[in-house]
């Protein structure tokens, strides 16, 4: 691994910037992601910062099942995220389609379209679960997996 790459890895581990992308969620998971960032839960103590644009982020936090309209957009946004990138599926819908699986306009979980690194279950995933998921993900990065 060359030095620049190591630096990027280190930065990603110590302060991952996340992009929150809603792929058709009912909004509850999204609110819980924001709640995890506000004072009570304060995800920021792990260095996690919410960013508005894919080009700045390391981790994509996707919530909701992939609907047919969002599919191409999701792929486009994913492609805009610089390497090395990770995707976290937040909530049951993002994991498997959840309560919406089988609806005519729903494709299923995020991993039907793009590769996913971590799954956080729950409907909605509680802020505690989100913090736990991120902490575990960062730990695997630490171990260089």
């Amino acid at each position, binding site marked *: 691994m060359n030095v620049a790459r190591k630096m990027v890895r280190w930065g990603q581990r110590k302060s991952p910037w996340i*992009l*929150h*992308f*809603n*792929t*058709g*969620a*009912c*909004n*509850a*998971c*999204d*609110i*819980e992601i*924001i*709640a995890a960032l*506000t*004072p*009570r839960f304060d995800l920021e103590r792990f260095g996690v910062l919410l960013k*508005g*644009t894919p080009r700045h982020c390391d981790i994509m936090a996707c919530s*909701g*099942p992939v*609907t047919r*309209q*969002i599919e191409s*957009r999701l792929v486009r946004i994913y492609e805009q995220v610089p390497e090395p990138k990770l995707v976290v599926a937040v909530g049951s819908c993002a994991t498997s389609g959840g*309560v*919406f699986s*089988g*609806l*005519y*306009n*729903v494709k299923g979980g995020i991993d039907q379209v793009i590769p996913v690194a971590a799954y956080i279950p729950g*409907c*909605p995933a*509680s802020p505690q679960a989100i913090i736990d998921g991120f902490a575990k993900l960062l730990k695997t990065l630490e171990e260089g997996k």
Partner: protein
Amino acid sequence: MPDKKRTVRVPIGPQHPALKEPESFMVDLQGEKISSVALRLGYNHRGIEKGCEERTYMQDLYLVERVCGICSHSHATAFIQAVEEIAGLEIPRRAKYIRTLIAELERVHSHLLWLGVAGHEIGFDTLLMYSWRDRELVMDLFAELTGNRVNYAMNTLGGVRRDIAAEQVPHIQKIVDALEERTKYYIELAMTEETLAQRLSGVGYLSKEDAIRLGAVGPTSRASGADRDTRRDDPYAAYDELDFKVITDDHCDVFGRTVVRLGELMQSYSMIRQILKQMPEGPIAVKAPLKIPAGEAVSRYEAPRGEDVHYVRANGTDRPERVKVRAPTLANTQSVAKMLEDGYLADLPIVVAAIDPCFSCTDRTIAVQGNGDSKTMGWEELVRYGVRWYRDRGVDPSRIKVRGDGLA
């Protein structure tokens, strides 16, 4: 006739994956002023209504609860009320009170959430952090009373699923008292803080006539002086036994919408106290049939964002033949187009946020210049543009000091 070359067309949206009724605004700009707004609806949908026809009534209850994760109890209650009407079920009074209690708690959490989001859109992030911190108290209550922070699944066909224990009542009261103190402080802040008045007054104007003509609902209509509230006009659950005021305001702008929502918070606290005091003893549910006899019903419900309407048609089986949902944001989108006209681009985020359209996702704006160059602008970028625009003109809400307290 405006100079064609100088009109810049800005499409906003269409993605609002979070909403059941995603919307797209096509905004025409003359300089920094918005000259016209065209609206398109119906982009991103999951097919919930169709899905309802393939599932049983009990399964549908979980599905409609997830139409929107912020007013989940609203959709679930509106749906179940319609089904109960067709089946001729009379639910116990205690169940009605519990439904009303959850409904008002939901309004509290939703309005506090809105306050924070509105703060964020004008660059007042301190308010976002404080009001979301206060909101966590309500979320704790939900977890305690229903078992989940969101999507409470409190309703069941014929009543509610969980009872409120006597030991829980003092705890609810304590939290309501604490929140009332905070809300009083926010009202004082909104009324006395010069910067907020400068930033919000006159922004997103909607006259009473327009509000009625365009069918605005909820706080959006009440802030324009249109006195309509389903809880009073067509009472459901336990509202006919509660004493409350419908808050209206005649500012007709974003400031007015803030005042109405803060006022409604105070009414909700008083209603919650009345519910706790008057809640009758008794069973919480009646036995309900699996198959619902043929028939149809429309049910109205005052969700935090306005009137929510559900239509259900049953055909004698255990699955509905048709379900139709009219969520409040849909009713308000026409008014938004009107509010934006003749306003500044910098005001767009707060005006759109002021109808409270569950604006949590990162939306994308694509600015297409007249000469064919196109530029992509994210929602966050637009927010920052608005914040900068006002700061350059001396209005900077981020400098407002907010008092904390020992809560949290």
